[in-house]
């Protein structure tokens, strides 16, 4: 089942559920414009995955796991709405649909960058609350005063080798590209997990010179951009 579909279902349940936290199958079907039979099938599957509690004829409710996912989506959705309205000045009637589509594709890093850029908003343009992020910080002020890469969540931050500063080191996480190019880089010692340091860059997006396993290698910008690193900053 595609991630996007699951997220849409979870959102629908979240929006519909009243005080008792339950949503009826027919309501969900109406909202998502799907046939009740197929909705039931999806709900059963989601129940098996532990995202919702599904009791026939009683309606469904979110589990803790489902709720976690939906709050993160809502957070992204509402941050995006703020962004689309305040920064891009799109008409209000368009922003909801756009945000609905974008919310599924942006990653946590973008989400955090949005949050900081927008000045840590707490409400979306419709006045609904924006759920807090799950970064391990004490307050929003502390978040904005620190670099994103310094926070716990960012242990796995992955950047292109071209984003390193001269003199900086990193470990290769993965390399994208054609079979030949990847093979050649491997043969020259750029295998996954290898420590690499950036020595210098030529001007105007020219090639970079790196040091790997005690050897110096020059790599063109186009190829280098597809070599992804972990800088080890925690």
């Amino acid at each position, binding site marked *: 089942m595609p991630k996007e579909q699951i997220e849409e279902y979870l959102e629908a349940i979240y929006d519909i559920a009243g005080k008792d936290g339950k949503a009826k199958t027919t309501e969900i079907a109406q909202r998502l414009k799907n046939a009740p039979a197929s909705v039931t099938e999806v709900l059963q599957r989601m129940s098996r995955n532990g995202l919702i509690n599904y009791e026939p004829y009683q309606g469904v409710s979110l589990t803790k796991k489902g709720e976690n996912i939906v709050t993160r989506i809502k957070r992204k959705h509402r941050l995006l709405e703020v962004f689309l309205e305040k920064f891009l000045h799109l008409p209000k009637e368009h922003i909801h649909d756009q945000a609905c589509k974008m919310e599924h594709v942006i990653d946590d890093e973008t989400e955090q960058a949005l949050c900081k850029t927008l000045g840590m908003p707490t409400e979306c343009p419709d006045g609904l609350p924006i759920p807090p992020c799950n970064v391990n910080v004490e307050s929003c002020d502390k978040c904005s005063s620190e670099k994103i890469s310094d926070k716990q969540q960012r242990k796995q931050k992955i950047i292109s080798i071209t984003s390193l500063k001269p003199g900086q080191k990193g470990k290769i996480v993965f390399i994208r590209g054609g079979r030949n*190019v990847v093979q050649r880089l*491997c043969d020259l010692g750029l295998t*996954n997990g290898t420590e690499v340091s950036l020595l210098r860059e030529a001007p105007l997006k020219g090639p970079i*010179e790196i040091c790997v396993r*005690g050897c*110096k290698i*020059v*790599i063109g*910008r186009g190829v280098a951009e597809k070599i992804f690193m972990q800088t080890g900053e925690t």
Partner: protein
Amino acid sequence: MQKPDITIALAGNANVGKSVIFNQLTGLGQIIGNWPGKTVEKAEGLLTHHGKKIKIIDLPGIYSLSTYSQEELISREYIAQGHPDVVVNVVDATALERNLFFTLQLIEMQVPMVLAINLVDIAKKKGITINYFRLSKIFGVPVVPTIATKGVGLHEIIDHAIEITKKEKKETQSKIRYGSEIEKRIEILEYELKQTDLKYPLRWTAIKLLEEDLEIINFVKQIAPKIIEKAHRFSKKIEELHKEPCSAVIASERYATASRIVAKIQTHKQPQKPSLGEKLDEVTMHKIWGYVFLFTLLLSILGFISLFGGWLTEVLHNLFEQFNPNLTGFWPNLAWNGAMVGFYASLSVALGFILPFYLIIGILEDSGYLPKVAYLMDRPCHAMGLHGKACMPLLVAFGCNVPACAGCRILETNRDRLIAIILSTLVPCSARTVVILGLVGAFIGIQYAIALYVFDFILIFLIGRLLNKILPGTSIGIIMEMPPYRTPTLNVVFKQAWVRFKPFLLTAIPLIILGSVIVEAMRLTNVLSIISDILSPITVTWLGLPAFTGFLFIFGVLRKEAALVLLTTIAGTAEITSIMTPLQMIIFALVIMIYIPCIATIAAMVRETGWKHALAITFFEIGLAILIGGVAFRILSSFF
């Protein structure tokens, strides 16, 4: 060549000193230089050692047995199918980990081998010590430390190699063990391959099949197509487990093994201060100073050669003209104006322009500056659909276009190679430099000569852009090893220049003298004016040149520098100003610069690209030169 008793192949990464060892052993003049990809063809030489005739093969540098560019394919094919008796794996002591990655592959192939650890003197300076004995134990092959430039350790290599050929082939060499998920599959494939009569080592073939090496797949397909299917399934399974291609997984494990071995046998004290080479890098690879340095260097080379060549021409002219008997009549004229002027003019061309040029190019090559230019110029090269590596053959083309054409093999795709070859035939080689500097530089002014160069560079750039548009495909980026600076050894530089200069002395000078005699004879018998008349619609009407230049253009196809010498013959004096105006000199040099690669370059193009391309390029350049020459004549005539 006599039938050798033993054949030894030198193999290893680029730039570790294979060609130096080859030259030391055979006494031959294989061109050497400090840049990756300079050896593009295998070279052979013979050596007699304790009464045994030994054939030595020098192979192009190679990083892995999975091949990437054309010159690497030559090496791999020879190692895999040429069946040398012994492979001498030359490795760089200062970069053991990467070098042993290749050694491990040779061991997998079970070729009889000797490991030559070269550059141990430089490694020592860097604080690296290596336990050769232990390394030999680990691999189960003889290990010899060498300093190739000084000849240290080279005879031991040969001794060990002879020793190996005497032994019965035993499996003394160790194996690398991969992770169990790979090892299990290798064993299954190995077992199945055993049922076929394959001539390659089984384990190596099995590994290559898992790596999905296209050539091995095609080869095995003919014998046992079922095994291919199985290997493909296995390979996909490993890919699934590791989330990266199987060949990358295997490369990773090989590197891990190489790294473990290095940790066992090498100690490295990190030097505190950056080395002189690294300090030089700071300047020569700098964002701004790197370019300033490059252009200053090129300008000063041209300036120096122009001044030196002009001075020497005058000195030799004055020296020889003292002895001019000034006789009249057919035979005395033929002897003096033809043969003698031809002789001293070509001598001044050789000693004044070509030899210094070769020396300077040799110093540049040997120092390791060429790869730095590749780095600096990578971005501009992209505009021409090439990448920085193309700069290395293009710089070599300043010396001579012929090796440059072959040098283009370091580029990965046919398209890149074709573009680079076409552009390198437009680079003003030493012969064209003779005409530009010896004519325009000497008689009008160095600034006009430099203007011609600048125009040529712009032309090269524009044609590059055009070719990039016309030819389908895009260039993949540069991936190149950056060798450190090394102090050029005078011995090597002189030997190098001599290797390149000798054919000039032996073939070009006699040819030019002959040409000079012919021209003089034709001038005296008025045949020259007949040929010139035929070409005069182009030379006189369109290009505004004197009629006699027609013959020079034809003879220039053989040797471009001959055009200048023969001009002297026609003038009967080195004072060419008496027969040509400054404008005519510029147009003449311009057309010579562009019009056609010399016959040797055409031959090189035929070898690299085939008849069709070579002819098309030749005619294109003739047309281009005539067009530009005529247009330039019309534009410039209002200034002169």
